[in-house]
């Protein structure tokens, strides 16, 4: 005969495991609701915070919600040896390209934009030792609504932002 969980007979071990599971699921629920159960100003709050981070219980699961954002990519324009070079970073595996696309999506975040652009420019200037200037162009793929598309509008890449960086002479 098959039995329900409550029919297994609950000893101390089972009660402890069930309580731990309930606590874990409660933290998962807090994470899904975008709430922090206990602020990290206390020791217990910090312990819970670390547990949530390690286990993934802090995840809010907001994938493609409430809507689908425009895809973004970065075009690097590097000026070296009296000409401009255009660099679109691409990889030969789908997984790596997905990570690159995720990275470019962070340009939506106000507080990260400048840092990301600077980081990307540093990589470009590092790759082109002769380069003096790097432009980081953030492009967004704008998809018209279905109605607009039927009216003739087409999806297209637009330039959203451009950040410029120049190599400064080495100190000393």
């Amino acid at each position, binding site marked *: *005969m*098959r*039995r*329900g*969980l*409550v029919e*297994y007979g609950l000893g101390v071990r*089972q009660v402890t*495991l069930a309580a731990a*599971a309930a606590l*874990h*699921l409660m933290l*998962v629920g807090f994470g*899904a*609701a975008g709430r922090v159960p206990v602020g990290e100003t206390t020791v217990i709050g*910090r312990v819970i*915070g*670390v547990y*949530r*981070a*390690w*286990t*993934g219980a802090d*995840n*809010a*699961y*907001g*994938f493609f*919600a*409430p*809507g*689908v954002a*425009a*895809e973004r990519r970065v075009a690097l324009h590097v000026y070296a040896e009296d000409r401009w070079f255009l660099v679109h*970073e691409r990889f030969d*595996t*789908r*997984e*790596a*390209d*997905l*990570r*690159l*696309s*995720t*990275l470019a999506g962070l340009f939506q975040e106000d507080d*990260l934009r400048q*840092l990301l652009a600077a*980081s*990307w420019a*540093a990589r470009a200037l*590092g790759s082109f030792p002769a380069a003096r200037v790097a432009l980081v162009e953030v492009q967004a*793929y704008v*998809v018209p*609504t*279905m*109605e607009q*598309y*039927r009216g003739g509008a087409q*999806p297209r890449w637009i330039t959203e932002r451009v950040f410029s960086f120049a190599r400064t002479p080495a100190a000393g």
Partner: protein
Amino acid sequence: MSDLAAPAPSAPEDARALAVLRIGTAAVLLVQAAAVGGHLLPFVSDRGIVQAPINAALVHWGLPSLRWLYPPAAAAGLDEAQVTWSCLGIHMLALSLLLAGWRTRVSAASSWLTYLLLKTGGASSAYGAYEFGQIALFYCVALPVGAAASVDSLRATASTVDPFTAALSRFVLRAHLSIAYLSSGLAKAAGTQWRDGEAVWRALMRPSTAPVDFSWLASAPWLPTAMGWSVVAVEIGYVALAWSRRTRPWLLGAVFAMHLGIAMTLGLWIFSAVMLVLNAAALAEGPKYRGGKEPARA
């Protein structure tokens, strides 16, 4: 009716389902590691696209970091790239052992730790597949995933499974997925894009995710609208359908169809595979236990 009150599946059935979690997670994450491994440095190294301090700022302070390893590794003559490659190598070895179920708990913990190191090192480029990969590995550490179809299960010391723990483990998986899908479904329903089909349209028209031309959908807007509502219905309905043996096969079929569709149309193969593994472990039913000999109790 909840499994807490209704007859629960037999312990061997639960153990087999948890083995699906172990084998599936290890296999999918091995593919993920192989797919991104050759391109890891641009995402995780200090000289990558995003410098390490930015990645560090995006993650919780208590998570492990590859940067912790750099000073002792430097003392041993290893540079940052070699530390990263070593971590990836250990990660893939640990996943292989987890796949086989050899010293399952240790190999799961090693896989989890190295996954966290690599994920936090490239936090700015880690997407949904990495979030659920981390969750799946945590459950491989915490739950008895080596109780069936494993090297450990062939050894006398690990040949029995505690029926309560096995049943509770699957309960936790179902509850976690119910919370995740409900949260995601409610967030989608709160906007207009999923209700009027524009979300599906936009997703399928993204240049990096759509391997085929879906522009014809603009002439049949009812189809993306129906697809959008279906996704919201499956995600919100998950919590109601996951708890009965009668509805689970239907739910599993719907979830499989949804994630297979995501994989095929959006190219999110790793993400979909992780979700399919988690759902199979949580929802799949084996052959009905027909009475007779009672499952072994630990």
